[in-house]
């Protein structure tokens, strides 16, 4: 050990002598810090605590049917929140997902009502409905991408525009009422299987979440998503087309909203013009509670999954313990503030380490 300068040069001395005490200590502190600042670990603890508290107040909460109901509510929200996670990791935001969910479910409802009316069987009708729903979702995502890349709007403004437009179109098309008359067996599909925890849509969503998580955290697509959000210039300088990647991410978010729209259609058995109203806020809340940074560059699908689960647990739990549902918003506000504050504190912790 010739020199004893700070980290940069200390690291360079090779091989490091065994039991090099400052380094070992630093590593130990790092491991401890990582556990404490691991947002997903904290979320699991919070979720368990919520379940315990609600169960103590009303034991009915701890039942398969209550949990199954939470998962049913969770499915469409976590779906749009998963798409939103990709968007937020790029440093953007997609405010349009609630509206996109609504309009895709409404348009799919019209298509399916038409097909059912002309004597189509339920199976093919549902397939067409799913394709229409995804198509509308992807279309709104593409419009967002064009507004951002070509019209040069910031994502907040671009997706605020499509939020308003989507909600408006849904109201005009439906004249404010639900669109029924689709395949009669639709709503049966979203019932839980054998009165257990899961329904087909929930299982579908879980599979999609696993795939989305793999693509975000283990594949090139996700690597680019993080790079764009961490330093867009570095991404460009490394040969990544930032515009093309952003377009893909907003279209993905639209497709996920379209899928959520179809899931919601199955649950309601009709297309409702208010189906996804303010769901974008639930989605963003789930992502933020899950530990993603609105500044971009950080986030985990697993965190979003837990964030959405905590939201729905709070909503369900407050209902089951007979608290005025208007308190929901307050509870969610507290969760968001706590999660964001945790993240800020962790940021300070990281900066001190650097």
């Amino acid at each position, binding site marked *: 050990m010739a*020199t004893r*300068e*700070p*980290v*940069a*040069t200390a*690291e*360079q001395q*090779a091989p490091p002598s065994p039991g090099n005490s400052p380094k070992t200590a630093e590593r130990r502190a790092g491991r401890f810090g990582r556990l404490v600042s691991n947002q997903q670990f904290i979320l699991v603890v919070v979720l368990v605590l919520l379940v315990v508290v609600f169960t103590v107040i009303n034991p009915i909460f701890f039942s398969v049917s209550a949990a199954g109901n939470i998962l049913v509510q969770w499915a469409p929200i976590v779906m749009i929140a998963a798409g939103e996670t990709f968007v937020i990791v790029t440093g953007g935001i997609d405010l349009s997902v609630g509206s996109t969910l609504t309009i895709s479910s409404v348009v799919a409802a019209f298509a399916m009502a038409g097909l059912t009316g002309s004597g189509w069987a339920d199976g093919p009708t549902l397939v067409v409905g799913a394709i229409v729903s995804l198509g509308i979702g992807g279309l709104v995502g593409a419009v967002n991408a064009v507004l951002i890349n070509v019209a040069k709007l910031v994502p907040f403004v671009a997706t605020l525009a499509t939020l308003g437009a989507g909600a408006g179109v849904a109201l005009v098309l439906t004249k404010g009422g639900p669109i029924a008359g689709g395949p009669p067996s639709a709503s049966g599909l979203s019932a839980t299987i054998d009165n257990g925890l899961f329904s087909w849509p929930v299982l579908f969503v879980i599979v999609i979440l696993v795939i989305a998580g*793999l*693509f975000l955290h*283990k*594949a*090139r*697509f996700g*690597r680019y998503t*993080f*790079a764009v*959000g*961490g*330093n867009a*210039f*570095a*991404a*460009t*300088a*490394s*040969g*990544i*087309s930032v515009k093309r990647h952003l377009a893909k991410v907003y279209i993905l978010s639209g497709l996920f909203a379209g899928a959520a729209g179809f899931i919601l259609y199955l649950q309601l058995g009709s297309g409702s013009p208010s189906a996804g109203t303010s769901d974008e806020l639930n989605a963003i809340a789930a992502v933020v509670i899950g530990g993603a940074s609105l500044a971009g*560059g*950080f986030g985990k699908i697993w965190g979003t999954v837990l964030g959405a689960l905590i939201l729905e647990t709070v909503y369900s739990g407050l209902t089951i313990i007979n608290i005025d549902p208007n308190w929901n918003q307050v509870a969610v506000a507290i969760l968001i503030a706590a999660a964001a504050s945790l993240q800020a504190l962790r940021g300070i912790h*990281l900066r001190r*380490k*650097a």
Partner: protein
Amino acid sequence: MTGTDAPLYEVRNIYKNYGSVVALENVSLAVHAGEVLGLVGDNGAGKSTLVKVLSGAHSPDSGEILLEGVEHHWKSPHDVLEAGIETLYQDSGLAPNLTVSSNVFLGRELTVKGPLGKLGFLAQKKMDTIAHEDLERVRIGVAKSDRTVAELSGGQRQAVAIGRAVSWARKVIILDEPTNHLGARQAGEVLDVIRAAKAKGLGVIFISHTLPHVLEVTDRIVVLRLGKVVRDEPTSEFNAQTLLGTITGLISTQP
């Protein structure tokens, strides 16, 4: 000193305006294989703009860009990287939220074999290993491959950026202020890296405010002032005082 007579990488009569601001006016320069070209100038002289033109981040309004005598119209940094030209940007070339090896391989990730690889699934361990070896070869403050860049010191970050550029460069390497954030000893190591790149036959364009480094390591120096090349001479024609005088304009360059 130069390997061949024909320049390896050359720009001719480059013009670039930002609105009404003239950033580059009739700029020409060339680097040969096995040559270190110094690019100096005061703040606002147009160095960064020129670097961005050379690296494909910006297109010039007019002028020619030639690699090995063939004219190119770079559409993006991607084209330039593919052609074997690497650029180290001042301060901003790394993604702080990604690990060292993710940065070294950014845009050129290795994927696993088979169908999963086609879907873009990453061979992360392989990249970690190779990135670590690459940085060790460069020998400027080797950082652990699986730490994020945000966790590194300024010197370590710079080392990662240099290691990345050096290990990918096949023809030309452009280094914009590579000795920033570095102590004297580490800066000396960067100069060694530049000499090694030159010995390998790469063309090196070295941009720096640290004039002793420029005088020490370059073969030729181009001086930019207010967007124009005011001198382009072998390094032996300069000393510390004349170089500083030329940069600041205290020494007249009108023939």
